């Protein structure tokens, strides 16, 4: 029963995310969607993933998005010209998108009707303990874990370099 509640919230919030005109509402709705997904992870006995879903996604990444949306203060109203020039108004992208949607629909229907029923072991409680997860993460996947920290470092340096203002222009200003 809870599955359907959380699933409905996740789908509804995600649909509203892409339907909103104002990016701030999109970000806030996406946080609601992530909260629902976190509930689904609890139902799947993945408490650790549920916790980091809230802490990392809703707490860190979405706040970063919110900062950028408020920092840029971009105009979000679409004028009549914008709507007329919308890519979906052209025939090429329309056909391509329709084809893509059709392929996805056929695949989904095929998977639902022809696919094998799920494995029997789904009901049994398993792989739920955070301690066991840590055990595997820091032994079998220790190297990947360390490489991840390097990735974060590289992303941090990249973000700083990309987002800073051009220092050359300041140096050639009246001061030098």
């Amino acid at each position, binding site marked *: 029963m809870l599955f359907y509640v959380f699933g409905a919230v996740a789908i509804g919030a995600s649909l509203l995310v*892409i339907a909103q005109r104002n990016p701030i509402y999109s970000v806030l709705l996406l946080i609601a969607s992530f909260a629902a997904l976190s509930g689904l992870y609890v139902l799947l006995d993945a408490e650790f993933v549920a916790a980091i879903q809230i802490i990392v996604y809703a707490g860190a990444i979405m706040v970063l*998005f919110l900062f950028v949306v408020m920092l840029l203060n971009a105009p979000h109203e679409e004028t009549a010209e914008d709507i007329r020039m919308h890519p979906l108004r052209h025939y090429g992208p329309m056909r391509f998108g329709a084809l893509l949607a059709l392929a996805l629909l056929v695949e989904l229907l095929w998977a639902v009707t022809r696919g094998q029923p799920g494995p029997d072991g789904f009901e049994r409680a398993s792989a739920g303990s955070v301690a066991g997860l840590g055990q595997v993460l820091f032994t079998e996947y220790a190297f990947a874990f360390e490489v991840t920290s390097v990735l*974060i470092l590289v992303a941090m340096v990249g973000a700083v370099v990309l987002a800073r203002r051009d220092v050359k222009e300041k140096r050639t200003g009246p001061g030098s």
Partner: protein
Amino acid sequence: MPSLDDYLILSAILFAIGAAGVFVRRNVITILLSIEIMLNAVNLTFVSVGRSQGSFDGQIIVFFVMTVAAAEAAVGLAIVIGLFRHRESLDPESFTSLKW
């Protein structure tokens, strides 16, 4: 009690919503948000399949996906800020300097 198929269908729907957002929206930030929706749909698939297999691997790969998503969001938003400084716009149609 929902089965594995229910979770897979739910994540397929979420992934389709995210993909539709990437195609339909004309705001770079909303496109990045749609990518996050798709990443989360895949995460749900990993966790549910990992549970059906009775292994931790699904949850561990979700951990790595979240790390990569955080890195992607940081770099992507930095690029968005840079683009906005150059063009004063968030419309992907206005970034056509590399178009031949």
